[in-house]
């Protein structure tokens, strides 16, 4: 799925859902508390060859981009605050880099892991 960033007489500039997912994945990896991303189902696991974009779904309509991501969070953190930061930061970074409206960012904490 492609999203149009700009159009002019010379043509359109479009970004693929995969590219948006890359941005989401790289941003999420830097979010404090996030120690990994996961996939939802079997199909996702088969299709997601790229570690950066696994567990990330991007869709869009006239209201803007809708992003869902599945993450693993470090044990012993305030999950609500971590998820809220991830959601804010993903919306901010994707919006900043693409200029697209972000209508929703859904953060699913699929697992909690003690890494120490």
């Amino acid at each position, binding site marked *: 799925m492609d999203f149009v960033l700009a159009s002019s007489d010379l043509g359109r500039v479009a970004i693929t859902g995969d590219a948006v997912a890359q941005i989401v994945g790289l941003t999420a*990896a*830097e*979010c*404090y*508390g*996030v*120690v*990994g991303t996961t996939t939802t189902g079997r199909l996702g696991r088969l299709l997601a060859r790229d570690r950066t974009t696994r567990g990330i779904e991007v869709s869009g309509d006239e209201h803007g981009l809708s992003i869902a991501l599945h993450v693993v969070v*470090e044990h*012993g*953190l*305030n*999950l*609500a*605050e*971590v*998820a*809220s*930061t991830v*959601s*804010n*930061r993903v*919306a*901010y970074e994707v919006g900043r880099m693409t200029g697209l409206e*972000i*209508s*929703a*960012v859904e953060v699913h904490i699929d697992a909690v892991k003690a*890494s*120490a």
Partner: protein
Amino acid sequence: MNGDLDAIRRLAGPTIAALEASRSRIDDLNVYPVPDGDTGTNLTLTVRAVQEALEQLDDADRERLAHEIARAALMGARGNSGVILSQIVRGFADVVGHASVIDSPALARAFRSASDAAYRAVRKPVEGTMLTVIRELAEEAEAQARPDLAVADLLRALVRRGEDALSRTPEHLEILRQAGVVDAGGAGLLELVRGLTAAVTGEAPAEPPPGLEDVGLDAIHQELSQYRYCTVFVVEGDGLDRDAVERELEPLGDSLMVVGDESALKVHVHTDDPGAALSLGAAAGVLEGIEIANMHRQTEQRESRLLELVPDPRETEVVAVVAGEGNARLFRSLGVTSIVEGGQSMNPSTADILAAVDATSAPGVVVLPNNSNVILSAEQAAAHAAKPVLVVGTRSIPAGVAAMVAYDGTRAAADNATEMADAVAGVATGAVTTASRAVQLDGLAVDAGAFLGLLEGEPVAGGQAFDEVAAAVVARLLAEPREVLTLLTGESAPPLNGLLGRIAESHPEVEVDVQDGGQPHYQLLLSAE
């Protein structure tokens, strides 16, 4: 075993006070991870949760105390920085809770444990943040710690290292460098270390070195959030359905979080309609702990605090007498502070100009009369003003525009006046107006109501056809080689297509700039430079 509790309460007070004192300054530094200006507030709320827990505790041994503090920090963590701080506190408490003696080596181990705990919880640690500051503190503590080094001396060394680490955060993180700030979370952590050091040594907290945490002007422009209200509340009840509540709240905004169990749900949502969110909550159960914050207001407050910090560096401001809205905009865009409405047949009074001069804040002022009839009033105003005022005797709007090109607010008024007058001298100006009465022009009779072309205020062409008259003025203006021809269209200007076509043909080398001036009386004002 109340000795430990008392000691910790004694240390916690000044530590937390140091952070609270810097809360709004730290809010202002916040550009990362999301520039929402709440880092100082989040850190303060997080440590207050610890303080509350300490107040409620009684009779606890050191280990249980450490556990309770870590737990309070976890539960009370607010925002990204609060979550990181809760890990730092946990790592620190782990060591201190088990240490039999708290000496320098134990403190070094505690800082190491805090740093490790903080780094553990992120896959890709971002340097130039709180993480960098806690890591460098741990490294410094390990390098310094010996059993014979007093804890107070170790802490003093840590404050110095922390200041150094904080000042280098913009080297690690590009967004900080662009905004001209140090990391907000790191600054908050350093305040806590400063406060703790003051509490241990009994000295007043060390002043930060000047300039270290100055907030740059660029920080103002970091912006965010499409929704206005951050809304938080708790719903209490029986058999609450978390998923249903979440589904209902979903359409209201973003950053939605619904956590808890069947008996209590905590809701966090950014929305433009907090009332609707509360109504949905109230339908499910009893509301508790409602907090609604206006995020736009938080951002605005931060902007106005920052703007107050920015001194006006101008040595010279400009007051210009201008007719026409477009021209007023043009002059403002060129740096004029104050516009006095006026011009041909509506000359402003000396008092009008004087009032505009008085409204400026720079030590010197230049006045541009932009009309020969206004020069005298401008000079009168200059003579009566309380500060140095110089008049650059511009006789037309285009001459004023030419003068503004040479204006530099950071130079003294006298220097500006000289440069601006030179710029005016290098510019030829013309105008097309309507003859208010019949005139004789080199044997050519121009009827009242016909177009009249002026060069430097003197009639040079006349006739019923606008294009002919304007082209005649342009020909005179471009008689000498010129680079730029500026046209300011008046409020009753005819279409310029014909004129522009002619100029392109006869003088293809000249760059033509057309601006909507909106001045009365003159259909066209022209300048060539």
